[in-house]
């Protein structure tokens, strides 16, 4: 009696355990919890939807648009600055070329000026030299003429002196003629 009692008890126990295992086997299929889950799910989704659509998403969209605008503006500004830099470089190069041409012109001008001055100076010097040479020639001719005269005078005096020393009487006219003849000869 007791044995059968315990067996039935054990069987009932096992059955109970199995039933428990069955009911607790898949919590997903425990329909008694469904209303609870669905209610809290709907509440959660509504809260998320309102927070996102009213607050978060417009704010993020605004931030993204603002950032895009900032980046576009910055890129445009950078492009503009780049253009400016290119223009400045071009202006610099132009100025450089112009300055170089100017410098070349000035150098040529200076060279021409110097050449002209030099020519004038050379011509002046040439003229001076020519004048001086002419003057010298004239002086030389004068000196030469003076020398010839001095020679004839010395010769006449010497001849007259010689004649008087030899005891003659010098006839100036005869001496003159003789000296002239000797000098010519």
């Amino acid at each position: 009696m007791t044995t059968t009692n315990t067996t039935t008890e054990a069987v009932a126990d096992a059955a109970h355990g199995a039933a428990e295992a069955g009911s607790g086997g898949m919590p997903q299929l425990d329909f008694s919890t469904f209303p609870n889950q669905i209610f809290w799910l709907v509440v959660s989704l509504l809260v998320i939807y309102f927070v996102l659509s009213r607050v978060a998403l417009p704010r993020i969209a605004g931030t993204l648009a603002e950032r895009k605008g900032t980046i576009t503006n910055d890129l445009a500004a950078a492009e503009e600055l780049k253009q400016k830099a290119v223009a400045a470089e071009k202006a610099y190069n132009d100025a450089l070329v112009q300055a170089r041409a100017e410098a070349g012109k000035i150098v040529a001008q200076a060279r021409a000026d110097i050449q002209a001055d030099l020519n004038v100076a050379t011509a002046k010097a040439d003229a001076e030299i020519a004048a001086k040479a002419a003057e010298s020639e004239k002086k030389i001719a004068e000196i030469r003429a003076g020398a010839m005269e001095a020679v004839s005078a010395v010769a006449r005096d010497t001849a007259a002196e010689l004649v008087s020393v030899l005891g003659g009487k010098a006839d100036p006219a005869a001496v003159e003629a003789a000296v002239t003849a000797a000098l010519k000869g």
Partner: protein
Amino acid sequence: MAGEAEAHGEGAGLAFHPLDQFKVTPLFGDGPIEWYTITNVTLWMALAVLAIILVFAVGSKGRAVVPTRIQSVGEMAYGFVYKMVEDVAGHDGAKFFPLIMTLFVFILFANMLGLLPGSFTPTSHIAVTAVLGFGFFIFVTVLGFAKNGVHFLGLFWMSDAPLILRPIIAVIEVISYFVRPVSHSIRLAGNIMAGHAVMKVFAAFAPLVLISTIGVVVTPVSILAITAIYALEVLVAFIQAYVFTILACVYLKDALHPGH
């Protein structure tokens, strides 16, 4: 308790309760679960909502042109989902972007928070995913008829198929249309539940080293397996949120443009 342990077939001391983590229990007290009872479902959904508010509402508060880290995360998620909606559902689908975004962030955050040890995962419950799946199904169906009227039925009528085949294709199309919410919701719940249950089964093997010498081999293997599956589950948590969202976009596209 003893009976339960025997029912689970392990007398040696290992406790296999892979499904206990899915149990819905009241947070306070031990009473029956009414629709308004505050349960672990409430707690973990509330945590997901809080995390979402933190990332998307609080994180975007600064409106910084150079974003902070958390702001960057919110903006990346925004861009990711917005691009998805626009690419799949078209330009006029962008109107429903907040709705799609709600689905995506709720599933993503519920999945991710569910991976915390000891947590509860709302998305592992068919009750939750079915409300999401069927709710969206009803929404797009109503939207389709409201936008296109009778032309919405053109979705089922393949005008470029041979005339004889069209009724047959229409029947198949109608059946596949009504299967959509079922697969949509079961895919999510099934993936999440399976992953969590497998992790729990491996976890149950981990204390074997305390009981038997074979545990010297089994315990490290099970710990390694948990680690690997955990990494996989992180991936699955994101991918399932992504898959659910992109399918929602596809259904939305069908409602907006049923012609093709």
